[in-house]
């Protein structure tokens, strides 16, 4: 049986690891529903869980996240927040390393509508602030 002190410490660790609702979530590229579907299938093939790869760390802007190593290579990206995804029913959990890697968690058996909803939650595409030279050096 665990004692209360250990239990409290574990609970604190989990709270630290949990991304805040206001954390920005960004993905390189256009993130159509079809691309999200394929990404989650690839994740399922490796981990037997459906999830979508994103970048997210509390307190950073999407531009900051694009610059993190390895720099975002896509010409454009889209973004939302952890809170918006949670309201829609999708938790976002940290999955480092690499730095800032996180996962949008999907239901056990996701439907087409899940990918359509998540794609619709993302902003219009913005230009990647990382220069082409920096991206190619990355």
């Amino acid at each position, binding site marked *: 049986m665990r004692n209360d002190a250990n239990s409290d410490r574990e609970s604190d660790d989990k709270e630290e690891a949990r991304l805040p609702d206001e954390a920005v979530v960004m993905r*390189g590229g*256009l993130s*159509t529903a079809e691309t999200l*579907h394929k990404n989650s299938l690839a994740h399922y093939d490796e981990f037997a869980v459906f999830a979508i790869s994103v970048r997210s760390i509390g307190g950073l802007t999407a531009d900051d996240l694009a610059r993190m190593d390895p720099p975002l290579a896509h010409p454009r990206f889209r973004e939302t927040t952890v809170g918006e995804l949670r309201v829609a029913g999708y938790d976002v959990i940290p999955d480092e390393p690499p730095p800032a890697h996180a996962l949008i968690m999907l239901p056990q058996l996701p439907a087409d509508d899940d990918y359509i909803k998540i794609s619709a939650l993302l902003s219009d595409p913005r230009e990647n602030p990382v220069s082409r030279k920096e991206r190619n050096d990355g």
Partner: protein
Amino acid sequence: MTANPIQRELWIWADFNSRDEKSRITTSLRFAESPARPVEGEWIVLHDDEGNSVKGVVEEIHDLIIHVRPEMATWTSADLVIGSHFAIDRPFRASPQGNRRINA
């Protein structure tokens, strides 16, 4: 860049957001465009549905999953001009395939 040990160039779909703990691009061979399996040490081309591609060397293969070290100097982008409507309002299926048209 060293020469490919095999005289072929496999193209495999990847989501460039998916990086493993060693910052390699990870994808599934379910999206390979041919039944040929890459081998470790082989140079392949990873591409997405948006005209982005990069060459990389296969460092690890486990069942369907491959881990590829990209050579970012070979990255190319199509710089597509996209309209504002992104959510696809029709049923779709992801399956092994070639390049797909983006809503433009």
